């Protein structure tokens, strides 16, 4: 991707101006503007980082440092759906690796790879704070699919292939289910 091709539209620049106005310095807006860029391009490859740096008038090194610090920024092109499979302790105990291997199997790729059709990327991640509903998968820095079983994973992949994202679910810890049920009845 040649650098000159990249630019923000007036609309995006407006949005960026609004973001900048919320912070005392342009530097402080780096995170938010990286998001604007990632939303637009689907990643923040070096050229995109350079665009952000230029737009905010910051050193490229700084933007690069920030982008590389956060795993949520994709430093290379990823699939349309990025499946973050948690294999940290709780999820691991509840079958996180089974979920991972099942996904790898069904998509024919390994963790860290992207399918040829550009639809899916799979990666192993550490705890996403959803231990109570383990095992789980996060989809493209967003929605969680929780309490996964083999069937649920297949269904999830099926839905995603048809462009259907899972709904956000409000979760309740299993040990609290009874109490809440009793209270609401």
């Amino acid at each position, binding site marked *: 991707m040649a650098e000159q091709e990249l630019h923000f539209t007036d609309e995006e620049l407006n949005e960026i101006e609004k973001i900048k106005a919320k912070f005392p310095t342009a530097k402080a807006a780096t995170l938010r503007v990286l998001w604007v860029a990632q939303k637009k391009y689907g990643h923040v490859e070096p050229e995109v*980082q*350079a665009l952000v740096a230029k737009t905010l008038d910051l050193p*490229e*090194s700084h933007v*690069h*440092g920030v982008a590389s610090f956060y795993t949520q920024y994709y430093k290379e092109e990823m699939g349309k759906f990025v499946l973050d499979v948690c294999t940290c302790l709780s999820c691991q105990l509840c079958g996180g690796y089974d979920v991972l291997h099942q996904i790898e199997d069904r998509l024919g790729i390994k963790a860290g790879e992207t399918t040829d059709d550009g639809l899916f990327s799979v990666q192993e991640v550490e705890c996403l704070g959803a231990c109570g509903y383990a095992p789980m998968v996060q989809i493209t820095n967003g929605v969680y699919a929780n309490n996964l079983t083999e069937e649920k994973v297949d269904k999830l992949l099926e839905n995603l292939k048809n462009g259907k994202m899972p709904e956000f679910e409000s979760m309740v810890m299993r040990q609290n289910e009874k109490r809440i049920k009793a209270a609401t009845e």
Partner: protein
Amino acid sequence: MPEVFIDNERYEFEGDHMALQFILDQGMEVPFFCYHPSMSIPANCRQCMVKAGQYIKDDETGEYELDENGERKIRWFPKMQTSCALKLQDGMVIQTQETSEEAERAQKDTLELLLINHPLDCPICDQAGECPLQIQTYKYGPEGSRFEVKKVHKPKRVELGPRVTLDAERCINCTRCVRFTEEISETNQLTIVSRGDKNYPMTAPNQEFDDPYSMNTVDICPVGALTSTDFRFKARVWEMNQTPSIDITNGKGCNIDLWTRDNQVLRITPRQNKAVNDYWMPDEGRSAYELFNENRASRPSIKLDGSNQSNTSWNNAIETFAETIEAHSGDDVLVIGSPHASVEENYALNKFFNLLGASNARFTPHIIDGYGDGFLITDDQAPNTNGCRLLNLNETDHKDLATAISKAKVCIILSDNLVGRKVVAASDLGNTYTISFATNMTETAKASDLVIPITCVAEHAASYVNIDGRIQRSFPAKETKYTNRRLNLEMSEGRLDRYGTNFDNWVSEEHKVDCLPLWDFLNKLAERLGLDYHVNHSRTILAEISSAIPSFENVTFEKMDEQQGIQLNLDNQKIKQK
């Protein structure tokens, strides 16, 4: 006056002080890595921990509260404090590792943590011997490590730029290098990438660390993570000998150290001088060591037929020189001093030929407009332009110099590559008998009829006046064929110098240049000519200058050494020159 109590001693202080710097200023020690006196304080290495608290004062009476033994009560801060970022307050109590076991333990634990993923490859690391991490681990660190799992691996041998190589595994992420590019050189070329145990400094993708001051990061890196690509694996620091000197590659006169081994200068590093260069120097100045080692004029040479020069003996050189002088009247001799040579050399040369009836020496400054950066790189490419001015040499522009040369029958040039820097063409020198006093075999020396090899800044004690009018001096660092560091009390001796004999394979004669200090040669020439002229040492010349020329009043080597150079009054001079 506000008071603090450090390791049970009372100190008074005025103004704002951070505990660490204050402690260091008292000549005591607390280990630290990320702190640097000329940069911001991020307090990220956590090595400088001390135990700190405050004597409790009664707000109403202003009296200190006492315990049952009559001792002042202390309210300790709840946690260990990083002393680099701890501002002194009246009545503060600080215990360093010397008096507090807790502080000692905190420092030890920090070191254990810093070393978890450190490769501990000191035996093959360039920094060994001058490594704060190594030194402080020996002094304050744990005996061993409890972390026996596999270490995290990171990139090695990364060429960050043309002059700096990174070993990311050795990095402790103190951010000194990053802050240097942000705060001192202001190129912002470095950042820390990634996080946790995987982070290390890096440039933005597709960018090079080509900062003109990049090698300062090598000096301030407290570990062996950033190394000089040029100096890597050349020598262990303890084999070298360190001699203070002055950067001669531009007009700033950065204070430097010359690092020699077996009379070769292997590297140049900056030496702190608040009034000139603080802790820094431009990368360019560091490659000057090549000038001191390579392509030197060694043993006189003379043009016998056509343009072929060949080496000759000192006796023959003196004889030829003397005959040339005797064959011409003073008016026919043009003496060209040099902003690239020292105050003493310019003065000695000028005086010598004045005695023989030649008119005042000329010199032409070596300025490249727009070359400087307002920091340590200057338009002026020579170390002693102001020195020549203060000595009242005749400042001449290129054109007038060329005319003067064409009129002269004999032209005497003091180490200045006039041909190389395009003041004159080699052919311009063809019609006059040209004698060069040269440190290096430059185009000018090669075009000369007689070349007298003289000592360079690395071989003599001499002074230079920088663009701001500060006079500073060098020390001999490298032996010539005729000097001996064991006899010359001005020269320092490294370990290998001290224990080496001619029968050791690390000692060789090769690196000693067959040259003389200009004044020594002039003594010999005076003797042959029967001229009443003799100086013992550059020190004597300077003494003479200081009594003869008001601008140099009271200037001595001793005073320069004590005060890291002396500020001369340049204004004085300008009035005189008009």
